[in-house]
């Protein structure tokens, strides 16, 4: 998986250079302190999606998608966690507050949890968090929860395609506003359909 990760990261860099926002804290021209109210800019339209995947099902599902050479958009940054029940809602909130354009959380299907009940507790937590974020003005599509098993490589790719399309449709302005930074018209053509090239 790690090799594949590196490959994906390299591809992403190649595809998205110039089209992606400065990472928070990146010492780019005009970049402010992380999350600061300074004159940092969000460039381009390629969304940045943070994906929290549970180690036992969804991460393995992503692995299978990779070893099966399935193509999906490169907008997702994966964070591997032991269990969807390990995901503190705060991580999701922090990701959004720091300027992530979308967050995807995926764990084992209910009933399949490696720790038996982790995803069942998580399900309530996520449902509540989703409602909270909607109330706070986040578009419903920015935060997605789903279940992907280790054998569902195809479904993983499908989920990423779907989430990327939805977040892309929402645009980047909201996330930039959350960080108190400006959105700059894209300098380089945004690699909006990078995935399509490989398909």
């Amino acid at each position, binding site marked *: 998986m790690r090799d594949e990760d590196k490959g994906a990261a390299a591809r992403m860099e190649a595809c998205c250079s110039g089209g992606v926002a400065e990472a928070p804290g990146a010492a780019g021209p005009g970049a402010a302190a992380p999350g600061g109210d300074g004159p940092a800019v969000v460039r381009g339209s390629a969304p940045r999606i943070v994906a929290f995947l549970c180690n036992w099902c969804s991460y393995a599902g992503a692995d299978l998608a990779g070893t099966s050479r399935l193509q999906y958009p490169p907008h997702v940054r994966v964070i591997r966690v032991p269990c969807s029940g390990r995901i503190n809602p705060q991580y999701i909130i922090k990701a959004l507050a720091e300027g992530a354009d979308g967050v995807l959380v995926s764990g084992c299907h209910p009933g399949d949890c490696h720790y038996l009940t982790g995803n069942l507790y998580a399900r309530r937590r996520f449902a509540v968090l989703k409602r909270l974020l909607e109330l706070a003005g986040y578009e419903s599509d920015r935060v997605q929860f789903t279940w992907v098993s280790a054998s569902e490589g195809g479904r993983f790719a499908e989920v990423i395609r*779907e989430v990327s399309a939805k977040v892309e449709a929402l645009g980047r302005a909201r996330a930039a506003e959350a960080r108190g930074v400006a959105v700059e018209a894209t300098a380089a053509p945004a690699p909006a359909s990078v995935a399509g090239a490989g398909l």
Partner: protein
Amino acid sequence: MSALTMDYAAQERGIRAIAERVLSSGEASLVIGFRKHPVTGRRSPAFVRDPANCASLVWDAECDFNLAVYLRDVAEKAAVVMKPCDVRLAVNLAVEGQIARKNLVVIGVACGGVVHEGRVPSACLDCGVRFPPDYDYLVEADGGDWPLGAAARAEASASPAVGVAIAGGDIGGAAARAAEDQRPADPSPVLTAEAAGRARPPSTSEFLSSPPADRRQRFQAELDKCILCFACRQACAGCYCPTCFMDRGAVDWKTAVPNRGDKETYHLTRMSHLAGRCVGCGACEKACPAGVDLSYLHRGLREFVGEAYGYEAGLDPAAKPAMNSFSADDPQTGFLGGK
């Protein structure tokens, strides 16, 4: 403010009588209630140990402070003067294993809403609970001290409420009695928006049907007022983490110069922690020196937890906390591929 009074003098007499009885009988060694602050004149918490000092206890609409925040810190058996929302928080603390109910004597007080700095908090506009769901002593609106235990609660719930309603500023009079609340079964707030001189906030479903940008604007407007002083956290009886995540240094949950993202992280995280636990007492709103009012978010979560999991915090001492339990068929509305 006079428009928002009930028979507080009678309630005050009741509270003093119960406090005296509890202290002299040794049922509790400490009574926590309210006094008039000698300097500011505001209602502030009072800790009474001597039965002779019970006359210093006061009660009126301005006794808005939530005394449930002290429960975890009290080492002795204490009797605490509590409004229905405070009692619900105490029940919630007991449900969560934070306090032992047997170490607490609840002097429950029928409540028609409070006034904080001349203003009725949003939380009170939303609240329809006039009687505490659990108590050892109940101070009716007419000041009668009924030494009713939990066993007699059913009887109490059937008894007519006397003059607890506040409608059009009538003090326990005919108009109030006509609009009398029939216990929590009737959720319509007696403390009407007209009585409070303020518009009732839109319902959550109405609010959710507005465009996300409008909701965002509303939230952002509140965040912009916030100065991250954490008064809301300190005033909250549900916020009892020994070390709040915002005070931890290992992870930079907040930056040196607080910005919007920090405020958002703080408030949303606090709210997600309080889901299924907040009873809507409004302590956060009242404690805020900057006028941040996020009660609509708390209310939205309360309603969601009620709809999705059938749970209301602080009403049932035998309940299992909503966020500490699950059901195999919990709804997955909004999940990708969920039903």
